[in-house]
């Protein structure tokens, strides 16, 4: 892998600076069995209400909120309350974890063996562990790891066990549960299973949210969410599922908890176990169903070398300080406490929390290097980055994650407003692609300008932006980072304008775009392989839907897409303007999220 050569020499220094500790080193020297059986005395939350997993169930079922929803559902559907309550109880049975220390010990033993074979080293920042130890005692903790691989989940529990931290309960997708035996094992190691989608099901939502909130309120265990909802195929952060964050923030808003700590955790791999699977998935080959036999077949990965793995525990983010002055908690005062339906949504904060979360990850990544970030198809950014100096490169890194880059004309001097308009357009266009807080565009713009200025790339006066000579390489890199997205979106828009017929269904869209892009590539008219990625295509479609270039029409069972060719054309034009001539332009990038850590 190209990236490896680039980063390996940095290791010794990195290790020292960030206090990363290779945890496998010690494991290789001592007995796995003794390790698995060692005395485990975790630090506990000071306000812990001791209760067993079985008690948890009755607390949830008796809770005012659930009782209220049960009555509501029963009066709406006409079913008897007992039936609905029974249903709730079944949902809970299906969902609930049965955390057992013995299973965890078993996993610890097995994982020791596996990790030692798979990875050269597993590096953890000890400082982060200490911070977590503190945080765990003070307030209930929600762990928010990034999700790149199935490994993440096992790794987190393994690490917390190792550092004598309370074992987390983990929200896992229902698909794991269908795996024979393994599903139950996961359940006993703290996983609880949720359906992938349950938007309309009031009862399910009530059971689920009450279950999570009860565990949080009692300080039962840290709760682990994969906010991205699913493993990121491209290693790029995905737009988060804010519903889960809403749930964990609510006890604070309603005063049931003094505070909740959100602890972002970044897990990155030099090489991901599922890398070939991901590439295939993005090219349209469906994901194999999770099954135990599949897992056994995947044994062969054990014989390969996956390099090092880095786990970075970020700074705990206090929900209280995050929302201070931004939300009036007293608005909950006039409603009965069991009622969560009529309450104002706090999505915006959830999003902010998430952005802070990614910020931490990014800071970490920028320190650590480029590891873990790579497109499955070729690495245009990486190759160009090699030519850049370390400092500029790191800044570029930061810019990239913010996601947005903006071009204007060739001129070295540009009018500020034009740049802003262009920036705003792209920000709007790519808001499905990158995590952006709606409404923060001015703030983002200013921050981006500031950062670029600080790097000596730009000079921003009241009305103009002047590009400095030394900033070329940075800008070149930044534009090359965004280039695949620009080109990819253009391919999609070209497809929509040129190839579509009247009744294009939503299902056909992705394969059709893929074929179109493939043709272009084979014809040599397109160099950018990212256009093949189904993720990008989906996001592009969502963007066009949002910007009214395309609308959905329901015909019978099928959803067809109606293209407004004029609108799409003009969008493409604007994209195109920003395209071709990238380097010499001024740039701005949005970045609500990063402060410079270094």
């Amino acid at each position: 892998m190209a990236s490896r050569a680039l980063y390996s020499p940095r290791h010794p220094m990195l290790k020292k600076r960030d206090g990363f500790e290779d945890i496998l080193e010690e494991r290789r020297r001592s007995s796995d069995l003794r390790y698995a059986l060692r005395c485990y005395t975790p630090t506990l939350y000071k306000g812990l209400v001791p209760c067993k997993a079985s008690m948890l169930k009755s607390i949830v079922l008796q809770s005012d909120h659930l009782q209220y929803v049960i009555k509501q559902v029963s009066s709406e559907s006409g079913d008897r309350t007992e039936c609905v309550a029974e249903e709730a109880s079944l949902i809970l049975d299906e969902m609930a974890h049965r955390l057992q220390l013995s299973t965890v010990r078993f996993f610890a033993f097995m994982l020791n063996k596996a990790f030692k074979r798979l990875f050269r080293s597993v590096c953890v920042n000890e400082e982060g562990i200490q911070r977590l130890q503190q945080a765990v005692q003070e307030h209930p903790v929600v762990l928010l790891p990034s999700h790149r691989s199935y490994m993440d989940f096992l790794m987190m529990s393994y690490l917390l066990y190792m550092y004598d931290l309370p074992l987390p309960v983990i929200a896992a997708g229902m698909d794991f549960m269908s795996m024979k035996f393994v599903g139950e094992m996961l359940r006993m190691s703290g996983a609880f299973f949720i359906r992938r989608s349950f938007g309309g099901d009031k009862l399910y939502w009530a059971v689920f949210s009450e279950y999570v909130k009860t565990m949080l309120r009692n300080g039962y265990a840290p709760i682990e969410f994969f906010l991205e909802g699913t493993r990121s195929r491209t290693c790029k952060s995905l737009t988060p599922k804010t519903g889960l964050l809403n749930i964990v923030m609510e006890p604070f808003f309603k005063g049931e908890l003094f505070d909740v700590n959100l602890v972002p955790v970044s897990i990155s791999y030099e090489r991901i176990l599922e890398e070939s699977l991901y590439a295939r998935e993005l090219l349209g080959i469906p994901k194999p169903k999770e099954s135990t036999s599949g897992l056994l077949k995947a044994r062969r990965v054990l014989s390969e070398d996956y390099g090092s793995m880095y786990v970075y525990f970020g700074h705990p983010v206090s929900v209280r300080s995050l929302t201070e002055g931004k939300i009036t908690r007293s608005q909950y005062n006039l409603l009965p406490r069991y009622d969560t339906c009529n309450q104002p949504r706090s999505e915006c904060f959830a999003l902010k929390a998430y952005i802070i979360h990614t910020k931490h990850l990014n800071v970490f990544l920028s320190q650590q290097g480029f590891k873990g970030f790579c497109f499955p198809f070729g690495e245009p950014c990486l190759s160009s980055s090699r030519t850049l100096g370390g400092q500029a490169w790191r800044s570029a890194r930061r810019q990239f994650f913010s996601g947005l880059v903006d071009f204007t004309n060739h001129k070295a001097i540009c009018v500020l407003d034009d740049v802003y308009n262009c920036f705003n357009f792209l920000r709007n266009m790519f808001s499905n692609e990158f995590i952006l807080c709606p409404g923060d565009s001015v703030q983002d713009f200013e921050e981006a300008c500031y950062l670029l200025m600080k790097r000596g790339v730009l000079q921003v006066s009241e009305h103009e932006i002047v590009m400095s000579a030394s900033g070329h390489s940075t800008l070149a890199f930044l534009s090359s980072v965004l280039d695949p997205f620009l080109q990819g979106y253009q391919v999609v828009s070209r497809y929509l304008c040129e190839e579509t017929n009247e009744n294009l269904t939503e299902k056909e869209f992705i394969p059709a775009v893929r074929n179109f892009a493939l043709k272009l590539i084979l014809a040599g008219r397109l160099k950018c392989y990212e256009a093949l990625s189904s993720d990008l295509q989906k996001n592009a479609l969502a963007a066009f839907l949002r910007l009214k270039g395309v609308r959905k029409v329901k015909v019978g069972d099928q959803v067809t897409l109606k293209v407004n060719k004029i609108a799409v054309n003009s969008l493409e034009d604007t994209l195109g303007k920003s395209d071709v001539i990238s380097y010499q332009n001024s740039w701005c990038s949005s970045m609500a999220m990063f402060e410079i850590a270094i």
Partner: protein
Amino acid sequence: MASNSSSTAQQRLRIIAGHLQKRPEDEHPSVAAQECKAETSRSNPSSATPVPKRRQEIMKWNGWGYSDSRFLFNKKGQAEFTGKRYRLSGLILPSLKDWFEGTFGANLQHKSPATPTVNLSAVAPPDLNEPFVEDLKAAGVAMSHDPEDRVFRAHGHCLHEIFALREGRIGRVPDMVVWPSCHKDVEKIVELACKHNVCLIPYGGGTSVSSALECPREETRSIVSLDTSQMNRILWIDEKNLTAHVEAGIIGQDLERQLNERGYCTGHEPDSMEFSSLGGWVATRASGMKKNIYGNIEELVVHIKMVTPRGVIEKSCLGPRMSTGPDIHHFILGSEGTLGVVTEVTLKIRPIPEYQKYGSVVFPNFQQGVACLREVARQRCAPASIRLMDNEQFQFGHALKPQVSSIFTSFLDGLKKFYITKFKGFDPHHLCVATLLFEGDRGKVLQHEKQVYDIAAKFGIHYKKHLCVCVQDLGMDYYVIGESFETSVPWDRVLDLCRNVKERIVRECKERGVQFPPLSTCRVTQTYDAGACVYFYFAFNYRGLSDPVHVYEQVEHAAREEILANGGSLSHHHGVGKLRKEWMKESVSGVGLGMLKSVKEYVDPQNVFGNRNLL
């Protein structure tokens, strides 16, 4: 006990004297620290004189209460309560020192003594409105512009006010004090004040804890403090209707004592009743400890007479309830001196209860305690008073226990402690205690008691013991400052509110550089059908802080925000004053505030009652 053997004969005498003062209904030998304030009125004839014009002669000018009664640490480092007025007076409190040092990290070596007397040169010369003074003289109203008199009436008992006095800092003070002796005098004063455009600030007991008595800095007119203390007579008692017509300047304990002599009581016993006045209760919507039987002030008043710049406001009859539009009494109750001076009040009175009984219940934790109080309220069988203290206060109560006088009582104490902590398995760091007071005729009290203890048995255990709290001044001598504030909150939010506010206090103190963890504690003092009144006490050791009062205010501000965020009210009975004004709009809505403002506008267009409270 070592201290026991070395105690002097004099101390013994004092202890014996203390025992002799014990109330007959107090049966238990180990019950020691009695509710001090409630008791004085009955057992102590020495305080029988009404408040003199020169209050500073008997009261502390820079702290709470009488000059001769205070906590101090004697030469041996033991805490002692001086004076003869209270049951605790003259007693040695051996555990207080350890508690004090342990809780606050305070050291008795580090003293921060107060300025012993008023620094009169710091008082600005009075800015008198001569024509007003002349007219007043002609009308024959008593007045003074002596600096001590003026300083005494320039403050309530907010921490920042007292602290400034202790350090000898004196801000804007009234330019003059007047003492009307009857309703007519007040009418005259208000009329003249309007005529000559001076600012009037009514002053009753001076026990405000909401900065209500502070003179507004922006006031440019001459400020006249209207001291109602000489209007202190009971004008008549109507035994047929069980009402009494009383002048509003009367101090709570005097009212109660005089009524007691006739066989009656009002039953209104706010914690401040030793010093607070009837008019003050009306003006702030006061609440008494025994409101479960007698009601809060708004339920006690039958008729109010108030002098406003527009004239006198009163109802035309003494009917027990009227449907004549919004109750005009409610414009007066809680008006905090912004509309006029309450001069006379007709109050309900009750025959003195035949029987009183104190008791306590110990709970394994605060949650159980609150659950018990909630159940008692649900069944509507609350005794005259029921108060729940959290663990920190329970420990403080223990620290106030006087030196044990015999081996037998110390043995009994040990036995009780053993029973609760070992036999029942209550953790001494979590257990909390509720104190109860039953009142009425003997048979009913016993029956009532049984009902309550039956409920309590589900949550905790019955235990007899009683406590009292008032050590702010002592703390201040040793770099510790603290105060209390209150709120009312629906039942289901009580626990969350208590926890969050206490935690917020600790957190804020830490952030502001307080070196030792603060004392942050609460008690539930009143129960209602739909909620409870919660009292917070908060104190910290301020050594090492350059501006402790500012830190204190910031923390208190944060705590109030936390209360409001958690569904608590702005105030249950202390009032708004100037301290909590900023939240009024949020609390009563813009329209609500507008209504109050338009009343003020009509009643007092010149803003003669210019203390700028509330609005």
